[in-house]
């Protein structure tokens, strides 16, 4: 198998490493050209490796609840970004900005979450 790298990326190398150093996979299933916002109640928050997960119950117009699974960074990344086990709790009402899954499934890559007290946390850095 041939392996290629990108010569034009060399000046960006530090930035590139920074963005991928903690990423254990390629995020290919997320459509990063799209941004979607959902609002709902936290079902569960897991601060784990290789990725944290936030599960949010979202009601549609008729009141039917659906569970959304949102992928975050790894535990150490999140810790540096201000996340802790006490950041969100089951039942918290949150608003989440995300990159949706390409196939329309109920999930995505978390961009930011607005907590009940108005604090905004990104998947890496506060307010990102």
């Amino acid at each position, binding site marked *: *198998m*041939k*392996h*290629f*790298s*990108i*010569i*034009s*990326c060399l000046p*960006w*190398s*530090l*930035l*590139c*490493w*920074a*963005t*991928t*150093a*903690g*990423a*254990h*996979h*390629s995020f*290919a*299933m997320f459509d*990063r050209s799209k941004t979607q916002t959902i609002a709902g109640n936290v079902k569960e928050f*897991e601060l*784990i*490796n*290789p*990725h944290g*997960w936030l*599960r949010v119950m979202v009601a549609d117009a008729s009141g039917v609840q*659906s*569970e*959304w*699974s949102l*992928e975050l960074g*790894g535990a150490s990344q999140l810790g540096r970004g201000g996340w802790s086990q006490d950041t969100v709790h089951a039942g918290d009402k949150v608003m989440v900005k995300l990159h949706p*899954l*390409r*196939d*329309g*499934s*109920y*999930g995505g890559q978390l961009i930011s979450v607005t907590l009940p007290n108005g604090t905004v946390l990104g998947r890496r850095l506060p307010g990102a």
Partner: protein
Amino acid sequence: MKVMVAMLLSAWLVPVVAVAQEWKTYSYPDPGFAIQFPAPPSVEQNTFRTAAGVALPMTRYAVRQDRSIYTLTVVDYSTTNANDNSTIAAAEKSFGVSGKVTVAIDARVNRSFGRELSVTGTNGSRSAVAIFFVNKHLYTLVGEALPPNAIERSGDSIRFQESLQFIGANGGFGGFGGFGGGGRGRRGFNPQAQLACLGKSAGDAVPLDTPAGPVAATCTLIARPNTQLAAPPAPPP
């Protein structure tokens, strides 16, 4: 009496559900992967027969929970000269038989490249699939949400798909400064850049995401240590 039965039933069900929903990482140093399941997986040894009729050892890890099925099948190709691209392509093709492939995209896990698919079954199921060929082992992961209303459980299928990790000397954590790795950026290439050039030729222009925004980039061939660039002709597995 009905109330009593309901209370007893709920008392029995609640702890079972709580345990059953606890996702945990399960590590298998041989052949070298880790993955998360919502409950301890069953492990079955079996035989996989290739299109050429060769029988290969196969191990299947599986959990069925509620209306979701999570399986990872690992086929040992170490006794063959199987090529990673063709083996992955053959596995991907098989999913078109049982349903409609709605998404098919190049993907990376640690230092290994493969494919990720979304499949809608003829019965209305929704599956998140990952196919990788690492250290002469074919990994086929399927997180399947069963009908009815499969989409309501589709998020967990993705969670399963995204939890696969490869550990060990090749395709493992080291190299990108990941878990147990050799430090940030000490060796190896930018995986995002490699992914952008997957299937491309030297000189091809490709877009590349960076934290500062997308940049125009050009693929270039780089000699990579311990990489087999050309393999001798070998019979198909």
